[in-house]
């Protein structure tokens, strides 16, 4: 099965450029948030915990950016003409797993870390929960779809 995807390479490059821009925006935003943090004067332990909690907030967007980069790789791959080549499967699987991991971080790791390491306590923003849950489930769906697609590809290989 041959699929002409060379026309999609600019889309892949655009996604990668977009990902880099988003990463820079994220770094800029987070560096601003880091300087505006409520440091506890004279309590190094509390400040270390605060920094650690701060870094956990970078996990979810970091994984989402990895997912975007993988998607860019999917579109800009050039060596294999197959629709479901191993490389394509790997890119989509990576996108799915990164989305799922990012959502997991946003839903579980981040609130737990903030509640444990800071005095803010556990709190969930319902809007963000819906967004992250949706993103996570889309990631899971991609992961499962790739597994089905690989199974289908293997069956098609038995047709000559």
């Amino acid at each position, binding site marked *: 099965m041959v699929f002409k995807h060379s026309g999609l390479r600019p889309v892949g490059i655009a996604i990668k450029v977009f990902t880099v821009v988003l990463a820079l925006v994220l770094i800029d935003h987070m560096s601003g948030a880091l300087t505006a943090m409520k440091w506890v004067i004279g309590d190094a332990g509390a400040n270390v915990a605060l920094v650690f909690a701060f870094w956990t907030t970078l996990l979810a967007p970091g994984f989402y950016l990895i997912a975007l980069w993988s998607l860019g790789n999917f579109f800009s791959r050039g060596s294999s003409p197959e629709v479901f080549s191993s490389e394509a499967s790997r890119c989509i699987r990576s996108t799915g797993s990164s989305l799922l991991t990012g959502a997991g971080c946003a839903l579980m790791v981040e609130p737990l870390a903030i509640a444990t390491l800071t005095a803010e306590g556990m709190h969930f923003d319902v809007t963000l929960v819906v967004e992250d849950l949706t993103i996570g489930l889309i990631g899971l769906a991609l992961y499962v779809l790739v597994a089905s697609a690989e199974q289908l590809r293997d*069956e098609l290989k*038995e*047709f*000559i």
Partner: protein
Amino acid sequence: MPVRLRIHVMMAERNVTARDIAARISLSETQLSLLRTGKVRGLRFDTLAKLCYVLGCKPGDLIDYEPDERDMAEVPAP
């Protein structure tokens, strides 16, 4: 499923080698060997057409079938 491919018979009749056929229809020798031994789940129409072209025959010359009641075992009763 007693559907059998008779590619090896046609090749013998035409006195052509598997390597020649594989090269002409852009199949690997392994794929052609799987076809010849019937170790495939299906044959694509485009592959069949290419085989017919290079062997100068009709699809019926390449595919044989022996009726077997077991072929209808999985068909639900009307």
